[in-house]
């Protein structure tokens, strides 16, 4: 029973990790906290769901639709909410406030579109196949999710560390000023980063929608709050940190829901954040204290 819960925790946690990966990527490269990331996630889930319901598309098309929608919304967010501020070199406070504004708008539209209803994927959207291994019940969906997350993470790492575009992204992350001097135009690079981050969130949205089989306009907020916990525990801007902390939080959460109660689970998650932030503010994989000395409003 314990092992079963741990497996469930790993599956949910890897999706959390996927979501937090995009969030931490934005922080590592653009040094912003995108408070609208939860809404991007939610819109990804909506896009996947509508692809299945309205177009009768197979599930992999739904995943692609979710990724595309998430990526595009994220790029639009960059243009509307962040680019004007970046041009003026505003403090991070401004970026947080304007992304909260964007979040409110995205949420309100989703509420209007879905009529505040909890939407569900059709029953046969994903085939229900259950394997029994050593007395543990493992669903095909869970295997697919873990496989997808592994593929996504490896291709992201490959992209960032083995391609020219990835090199440019890392150069801009190091210093936008210096990369400009080296002849890199930060505009398209930022666009790419926002697209990747949004696509990861959109994919996580479809996956979470499938796992819990519910899509609702408020589904982004708890995930965003959890992503804070994950990236702080893992270390801001750290890719392995986001993944490992995501798994950890997933396991802690499922275990405390199963053995203590769903209400207390939330408190435990945030208490663990508090403990980490006090004992080791840079997180488990935080490299420097540079991120701590960010500009203030």
């Amino acid at each position, binding site marked *: 029973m314990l092992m079963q819960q741990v497996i469930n925790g790993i599956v949910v946690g890897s999706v959390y990790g996927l979501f937090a990966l995009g969030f931490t990527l934005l922080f590592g490269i653009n040094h912003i906290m995108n408070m609208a990331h939860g809404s991007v996630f939610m819109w990804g889930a909506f896009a996947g769901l509508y692809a299945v319901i309205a177009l009768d598309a197979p599930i992999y098309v739904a995943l692609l639709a979710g990724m595309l929608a998430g990526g595009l919304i994220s790029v639009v967010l960059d243009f509307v909410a962040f680019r004007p501020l970046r041009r003026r070199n505003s403090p991070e406070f401004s970026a947080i406030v*304007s992304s909260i*504004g964007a979040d409110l708008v995205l949420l309100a539209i989703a509420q209007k579109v879905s009529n505040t209803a909890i939407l569900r994927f059709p029953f046969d959207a994903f085939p229900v196949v259950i394997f029994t291994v050593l007395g543990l019940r493992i669903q095909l969906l869970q295997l697919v999710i873990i496989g997808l997350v592994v593929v996504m993470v490896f291709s992201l790492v490959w992209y960032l560390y083995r391609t020219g575009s990835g090199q440019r992204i890392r150069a801009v992350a190091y210093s936008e000023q210096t990369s400009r001097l080296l002849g890199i135009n930060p505009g398209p690079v930022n666009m790419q980063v926002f697209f990747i981050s949004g696509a990861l969130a959109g994919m996580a949205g479809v996956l979470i929608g499938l796992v819990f089989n519910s899509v609702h306009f408020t589904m982004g907020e708890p995930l965003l709050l959890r992503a*804070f916990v994950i990236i702080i525990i893992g270390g801001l801007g750290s890719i392995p940190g986001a993944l490992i902390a995501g798994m950890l939080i997933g396991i802690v959460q499922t275990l405390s829901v199963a053995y203590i109660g769903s209400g207390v689970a939330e408190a435990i998650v945030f208490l663990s954040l*508090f403990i980490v932030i006090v004992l080791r503010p840079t997180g488990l994989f935080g490299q420097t204290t540079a991120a701590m000395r960010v500009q203030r*409003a």
Partner: protein
Amino acid sequence: MNFLATYQSLFDHMLVNMLLAMSQYIVLRAGVFSLGTAGFTALGAYGSAILITKAGWPPAFAIVFGVALGTLASALLALPLARLRGVFQAVATLAFVQIVLSGTQNWQSLTNGALGISGIPHSVGTGTLVLIGALVVGLTVSLGRYSFGRALDVIREDETVAVSLGISVPWHQRRAFIISGALAGLAGGLHASSSYSIMPTDYGFALMVATLAMVVLGGRTTVWGAIVGAIVLTALPELFRVFAQYRNVVQGLLLMLVIVYLPRGVADTLIAMARDRRLRGALNPSQWTNEEFPHDEERSRHHYQRRRPAARGDHRSAASADPRELPAPRHSRSHGRVGRHLR
């Protein structure tokens, strides 16, 4: 009278929101990026509501207890917070809000869980709220005007400069944070005893966003910013009932537009513009009149001397002359620099 009756609850709400905005303003002014106001408000509201309904305390004592609860919580939270910066402070205070919220939702025996506490006697009237509001505004203004406020301004602008001036950053930030907690606790207690019921969802993400929005909209370096923001954002949804469905859209767009185009907030921008105008008037030779201190010959002369001490050779003769008859000053380097800076 009819008008008053219709808008009385709105007015009460506005006054409570003003206290909340003040609580958010004071930490932001100190350069602490705290989102904890919602959590302290929840503590104050629940503390006083439980004492009134379950222990039968008189409301005044219960509200004082709410303030004490907010103060205590912020004093405790200030200790770990002093080690953190920027985004980390935001996330830590956010975690605090979430912990308080899940406490109010899950401590069933004390807080009734998601149902909230209802049947709180309506014991705080508009008069009391106005009185308390005026008192708090007065206190905050006077606090901000003297050395404490100036220290906060320096810390917000540049901590290194603050340290080099001998200003203790943790000391001031901790005090600002504790004042913020006390004000939020007060607002919570007043909210509980001026409305009939409270629920955990009253103090969640929405309240956090609303409080932040008020301060951002109004301006976060003067008290007037917080007040203007609270008034506008409380009144706006009521005045535009037609847009009730699009309330969040309007609020979100407003936040984005203000932070992009008016980063200092409405009230702060206006105040800065007025100050700018005045200074420019004082520096522009063609406008040198006694307008600034029309009834005070001595001060007006002193003012001009201070502005350009190097421009005159003999300062004693300049001091005795009527400022209006002074020859136009040479456009010295420092003068040009100041002018450019203002523009």
